[in-house]
């Protein structure tokens, strides 16, 4: 167990309390925030980027940005929601840059570079099971916002109120996007089963 995690066990304190400590000059309080949220941010990044190195890089950058901007955090949402938004913006930017790089590589020598480009940016993680592959493939076909809402609600088990804050929409909109996402997933899985 890390030192920061040990602190959490001996002195349970919520994120807001840690932020207050950090603002009071206790820089180690931020280490505890990192320990609490690093795995979730990493999973969020890995699900979208599908590359451990890229996900690690995005996770690091998300925490650095949070660290640098913590003074501007007003507490309108939870720290987790705020951090997730930072991470999601970085994922979108990273995916865009990777896509641009891949397109440039493909324009040079498509036959030679395509497999390499896939390995760099879109490799399928080593995962077993046809069922799993079918589910993943269907989720990836969802529009970005619907996919985000499904991932946050089901994978990260966040309440719709928080999902809505991260997706920057109303709670009702988050619920409706979730409904349409699951409806679409059922259709996609059914199509796959029929094929």
């Amino acid at each position: 167990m890390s030192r920061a995690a040990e602190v959490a066990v001996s002195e349970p304190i919520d994120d807001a309390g840690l932020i207050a400590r950090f603002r009071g000059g206790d820089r180690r309080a931020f280490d505890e925030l990192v320990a609490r949220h690093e795995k979730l941010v990493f999973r969020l990044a890995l699900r979208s980027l599908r590359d451990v190195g890229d996900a690690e890089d995005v996770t690091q950058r998300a925490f650095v940005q949070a660290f640098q901007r913590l003074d501007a955090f007003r507490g309108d949402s939870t720290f987790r929601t705020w951090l997730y938004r930072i991470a999601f913006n970085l994922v979108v930017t990273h995916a865009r840059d990777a896509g641009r790089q891949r397109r440039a590589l493909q324009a040079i020598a498509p036959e030679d570079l395509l497999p390499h480009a896939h390995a760099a940016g879109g490799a399928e993680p080593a995962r077993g099971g046809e069922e799993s592959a079918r589910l993943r493939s269907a989720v990836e076909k969802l529009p970005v916002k619907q996919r985000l809402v499904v991932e946050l609600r089901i994978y990260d088990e966040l309440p719709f109120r928080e999902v809505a804050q991260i997706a920057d929409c109303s709670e009702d909109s988050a619920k409706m996007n979730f409904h349409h996402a699951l409806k679409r997933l059922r259709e996609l899985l059914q199509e796959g089963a029929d094929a």
Partner: protein
Amino acid sequence: MSNPMPGDGCAKFVERLAALAVDGDEELERHIAACAACRREAERYRGLAERLRADEAASAAETQAPAALHDGILRAIAGAAPGAASSSPASTRRRPWRWPALAAGMAAAAALGWLMLARKPAPVAKRHATPAIAAPFEEDDDPCQLIGDLDDDEVARVSSYFKKGA
């Protein structure tokens, strides 16, 4: 895949059924106790959500975060200053070419300004005819501005439609 037609009382759930089913919404639970069509749909959505959750749990167990992740983050933070989001350390470094570059920039701006003043200005209406297009996907952009699924207006329209129909 066929969806059952909503009956009386179903309309208020039809666009959110999956979300309410996963949440175990009390009002929906009361409704599906008496409505077989919605109950069947709710069970399907719950089943799918459970499959997704189980798959993610298996995936998370297979793909652990790297052991060095925590230390890597702390190292990266150690090299960053709090409140320094907009100014990198490099920007405060002394640069010998800074003043000549600034002077050249000001001269170029003055020349550009003179050229613009010398030209006849375009009619106001014409200048506003083409709206500026924001550069997409900037780091601080709101990602949801880039995503056109169901925005709040559309949600409101759909809601009012179903309220009318209910």
